[in-house]
């Protein structure tokens, strides 16, 4: 078995474990770092500029964090391009900015990471649930990691009558209502999964029609991704209160998933009864909170920018610097929104405004 294949086999075995020690995590993180340093040329030159060599990187937190913008600028890959590879792209707005690309030569690592974690954090013991999916399917959006994630949820964990209610024509509300009614009637737990903004659209439509449901015990909702300007900006408090009121799913069973195209592993909370909820991931991903310019970890209790070291990111880079603001909390971290580019206080021009003006 060659080096890459044995690394991959070990990675799959690692994800299949029930947990790991700090040492085990470090060992695999460093092996992946060495592999990516050797095979991923843009990453190597980034490391060299940062003075991070194989000898200097002694623990996972020493691995230089690659900013997510780099996924737009460069092809970050350790294996050569394959015709069969899957490429997940970030949702580029209006086509001006380049879209970030994440190359997956095979999806077995991604899929194992997703299913192991999803079974524990969303299904909580249930084998299969009848699912309603509020997002376009994989055929409609082959480059969307979320579409693949939801397809996997449906194929691995969905009952036979699971359906996608977002068609090219838009939301199939009658179909969704029929499925929800049936769940009410049969008393079989139901799962509704999709983009946060789609759930806002569902709630708006239900309110408009004066309809509401009491889904059976054990039903659950998964939302992800925020509103992205696709729906009105609903405060989180109203969002989860609305889900509970209109669908009868207690907020403890409304799970938010925090994922990124640039990662191969997701974070979940344990319900949204209390806001902001605490997010956490499985044993093969670890996070840091850093000061953005120096990259140093912030003092305990301080807010910082999230850095994730995701061992399932075996082909691109394990360690990425996000643009998300976080803060440590008991059992994980709080997600406090995006670090918006600072707005200039006066008449000197800030980048964000300039880009906006230039696009206008």
């Amino acid at each position, binding site marked *: 078995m060659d080096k890459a294949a044995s690394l991959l086999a070990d990675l799959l075995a690692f994800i299949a474990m029930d947990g790991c020690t700090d040492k085990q995590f470090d060992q695999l993180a460093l092996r992946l770092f060495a592999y990516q340093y050797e095979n991923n040329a*843009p990453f190597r030159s*980034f490391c060299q*500029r*940062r003075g991070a060599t194989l000898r200097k990187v002694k623990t996972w937190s020493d691995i230089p964090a690659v*900013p997510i*913008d*780099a996924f737009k*600028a*460069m092809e970050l890959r350790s294996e050569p391009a394959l015709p069969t590879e899957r490429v997940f792209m970030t949702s580029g707005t209006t086509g001006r900015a380049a879209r970030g690309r994440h190359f997956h030569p095979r999806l077995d690592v991604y899929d194992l990471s997703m299913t192991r974690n999803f079974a524990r954090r969303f299904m909580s013991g249930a084998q299969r649930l009848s699912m309603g999916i509020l997002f376009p399917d994989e055929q409609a959006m082959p480059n969307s990691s979320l579409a693949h994630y939801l397809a996997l949820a449906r194929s691995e964990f969905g009952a036979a009558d699971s359906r996608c209610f977002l068609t090219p024509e838009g939301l199939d509300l009658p179909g969704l209502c029929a499925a929800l009614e049936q769940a009410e009637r049969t008393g079989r737990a139901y799962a509704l999964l999709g983009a946060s903004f789609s759930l806002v659209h569902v709630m708006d439509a239900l309110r408009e029609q004066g309809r509401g449901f009491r889904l059976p015990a054990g039903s659950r909702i998964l939302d992800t991704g925020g509103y992205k300007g696709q729906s009105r900006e609903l405060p989180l408090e109203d969002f989860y209160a609305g889900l509970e009121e209109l669908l009868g799913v207690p907020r403890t069973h409304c799970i938010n998933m925090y994922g990124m195209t640039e990662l191969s592993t997701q974070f979940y909370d344990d319900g949204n009864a209390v806001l902001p909820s605490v997010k956490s991931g499985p044993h093969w991903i670890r996070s840091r909170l850093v*000061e*953005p*310019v*120096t*990259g*140093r970890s912030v003092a305990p209790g301080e*807010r*910082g*920018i999230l850095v994730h070291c995701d061992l399932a990111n075996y082909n691109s880079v394990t360690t990425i*610097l996000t*643009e998300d*603001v976080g803060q440590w909390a008991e059992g994980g971290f709080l997600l406090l929104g995006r*670090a*918006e*580019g*600072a*707005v*200039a*206080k*006066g*008449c*000197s*021009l*800030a*980048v*964000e*405004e*300039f880009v906006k*003006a230039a696009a206008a």
Partner: protein
Amino acid sequence: MKVERITAGHLPGLRDDEVQWHVLPFERDGLRLEVSVPMLTAAQMQALAQRVRGAADRHLRTMPVAEIIDVIDRAIARLLDRNDPFRREAEAWLPVVSGYDADMLRLGLTGYFKTFRAPQLRRFVAEDFANPAVLDGFQPAPKGGAVRAFGPDLLVHVWAGNVPALSLWSLVCGLLVKAPGIGKLASAEPLFAGWFARLLAEVHPPLADCLAVVWWRGAGGEEVDALYAQADTVLAYGGNDTLAALRQRLPMTARFLPHGHKLGFGLVGAAALDALKAPAVARLAAWDVMRYDQQGCYSPHVFYVERGAPVPPRAFADYLAAELANLQQRFARRPLDLAEGAAVAKWQQAVEWGSDDQVLIGPVDAPWSVAYGDSLQALAPTALYRTITVVGVDRLDEVVPVVAKQRAFLQTAGIAASPEELYRLASLLGAAGVTRISAIGAMSMPEAGWHHDGRFNLIDLVRMTEIEQSAEAAAQPFAPYAD
């Protein structure tokens, strides 16, 4: 933590307990400063407008400009006196609210106040009025008849907080044209305008009621509409979005003088790039980047540097980086909050991960950052806070079409070149939209009487009233001495 409190603003005719106060908190080096800013109701705003107008009618419009200049000069003399209580307040608290290095601020304030002494103010007036006496009474017009300049009935100022004491410019302009004024404090620097109004009242008590300084949250509500309804001229600093929204709310008849976002840049010609001159120019360029951490509308974002001289552009960028490192020792950059830091990091990352001919000079975690690009690139803003781009070009002329694309954002260009080159480039840049050309090193220190954004500071505020020849001639028969 030690807590200090300051009451900001200036409210003639209103007692402190009659208005609502909002607290703006600032923290620095273990000190917490709570600045209380006044929030008025619509009725109070209306009454205030009436009061300042009435006071200006009685006390300000009756003063000859020479006397107004004298009063401002005496106020400025006190601001230049480091033992004066007002100056001491400014030196103590402006660093806390702005976060800027205290020494940088002290030097900046002195350099700035110096441009408002009597001789400079007279030049300021003369810059706009060939005969400054038109501000005091009717003066003969060359075409015949007579003409007099009247300032606004009510001048409303909306200030920005990027440069401390920025409000002094528009306050002085308003005074010189004898306009009663109501100004809105910037949340990021809510102190200086109120101090100046109070200082003026001490220096010349009749002026106490001619200026008012207030605050409102964001764009404000009905109280602000009440104020705008009474304003005949509104002078505002800020982002273009803010200014556009403001314009929507003004009565059609109001004159609007916006100072929006600008993008400064510098040109360094081959003549300035020998082994002796290049380091000196780089040092001056670093000062322009350092002052107010690049927050001024005149602050440079890009230096275009000509190739073909003994010191190549890349070496100039290294000099600039070294000077910025030096200046950090004397005048430390202000601490960045998370969003500002993230913006700087994002800008650095774009350079690091961008095209191959771009490099970031110096350590990524330094409190300054120089990006060097070896091929001509667009004039685009950096992340501010001492982040600067240096671009090598074959000829400075290549830069003209590039900057012309940002016409709406052009204002200041710093030039280091021979006298012939200076004038030749100035013509090209002026046509492209640049309104101010300065030495490198003086970009962030505009001189007294400059034409801010290419406009007339005082003429834009006044309206002219003419007595036509016909009226003069027609009056003759009605004279008691008429035959």
